[in-house]
């Protein structure tokens, strides 16, 4: 073991991997942005009156829940250029990050739909009615009364979904995106497969610290935002 395993490589490769964390973050934040938009649309469809829209939203969520992200990733990677080809567009040259963002936005949308829906349903209907009865418009009632309360309820689930997204995002290397996992594989390849274990350990340490940090951040944020909730209890 001694001659194969060298712990100094772990520290060394962490410093080599860290610059590529920004690619991971970039992909994750775009996916969160678009995924949340998709989630809002789906949640609106699920909560709305139209039966067709509700069925479409339910079907979408079931399908996305049953698809491994790697399969979805490759379906998007090979499928979108093929569809584009049929319409006479050449989509083979666009950045790989775009495919990754599309894939994880689709997936995050399905997660977020459930998060948003459960948060919305947890708010008592009387809140909206009383807001309207004191003269707020519908939009004002949503923005000032419903949204701040729903946000607090949604926060822990949002944090969990974000962590899940970050970890599924590690698969982006399979289509050749150079994020931290992709870089780790490149380093190993350039080392003729030597010291692979140390580099993977470095990778896992980065991810581990990252997710603990995000977890703590959301716990803190929840505590700050739930201040309004506590003052309600004293009434």
């Amino acid at each position, binding site marked *: *073991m001694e001659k*194969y*395993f060298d712990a100094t490589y772990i520290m060394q490769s962490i410093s080599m991997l860290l610059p590529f964390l920004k690619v991971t973050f970039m992909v994750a934040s775009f996916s969160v942005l678009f995924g949340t938009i998709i989630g809002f649309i789906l949640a609106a469809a699920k909560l709305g009156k139209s039966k067709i829209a509700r069925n479409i939203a339910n079907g979408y969520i*079931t*399908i996305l*829940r*049953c*698809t*491994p*992200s*790697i*399969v*979805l990733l*490759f*379906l998007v990677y*090979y*499928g979108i*250029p*093929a569809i584009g*080809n*049929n319409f006479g567009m050449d989509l083979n040259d666009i950045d790989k990050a775009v495919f990754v963002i599309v894939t994880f936005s689709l997936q995050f949308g399905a997660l977020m739909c459930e998060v948003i829906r459960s948060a919305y349903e947890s708010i008592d209907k009387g809140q909206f009615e009383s807001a309207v009865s004191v003269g707020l418009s519908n939009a004002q009632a949503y923005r000032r009364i419903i949204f701040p309360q729903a946000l607090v309820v949604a926060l822990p689930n949002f944090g969990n979904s974000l*962590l899940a997204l*970050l*970890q*599924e*995002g*590690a*698969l982006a290397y399979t289509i050749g995106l150079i994020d931290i*996992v992709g870089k780790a594989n490149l380093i190993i390849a350039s080392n003729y497969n030597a010291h*692979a*274990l140390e580099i*993977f*350990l470095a*990778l*896992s340490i980065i*991810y*581990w610290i*990252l*997710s*603990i940090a995000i977890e703590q951040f959301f716990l803190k944020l929840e505590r700050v935002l739930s201040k309004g909730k506590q003052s309600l209890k004293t009434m």
Partner: protein
Amino acid sequence: MSEGLDYKFLVDTFFVALSGVPIALAITIVALLVALPFGFILALTRINRIPVLHQFAQIYVSFVRGTPIIVQIFIVYSSIPLLLDSIFTKYNLEMNVYDVNPIWYAFIVFSFNTTAILIEVFRSAISTVSKGQLEAAQSVGLTNVQAFRRIIIPQTLVVALPNICTATVNLIKATSLGYALSLQEITLRAKVAANVGYNYVEAYIDIFLVYLILCSLVEYAFKRYEKRLIKYKAVNA
């Protein structure tokens, strides 16, 4: 590509992908069989705050939940052969590390992963069963083992089942990463079939369909089982 989908290939590869289902299911079942008892026991150590095991379980869960499964696969795949090799040479065993079937690595990774997930599932489920249940069981003369088998576990299971279902579906989905271990499961088989004619779109549609069917069936089975278990649910009315 511009001539559309190759339907003959689509149908043929569907059955190629389907032939990978037994391996995916074997990994799922082995991982669950290992993870269910270990998860339950470690969950108990976390609830009862047993000194060393409690901290161990905490770090273990945090690591598994904090790192992507693919990185865990990489670590196991690059560390276990090293360990095995040093063991083989130490005891002069005439065995080659590269002859080990990759399915063993898959068993290790996915059991390791699922145990951590189930610790959390059981921890939240056990804490919903009130302490009075165990005390009442003991007071009517059941031993600890009997009380757990007949009173606590059935009630825990009802609460835990939806989460176990989610964990199982996630596990089946995660077996698609077995390609990193060059395991002949659903994804790799269809991908290899596609390599011949670059029919990747068709191959991935097939893989997608197989997982969709598989996961829907598992979810349906869990729903049925949940209905049967519902009689254990405590009625507080």
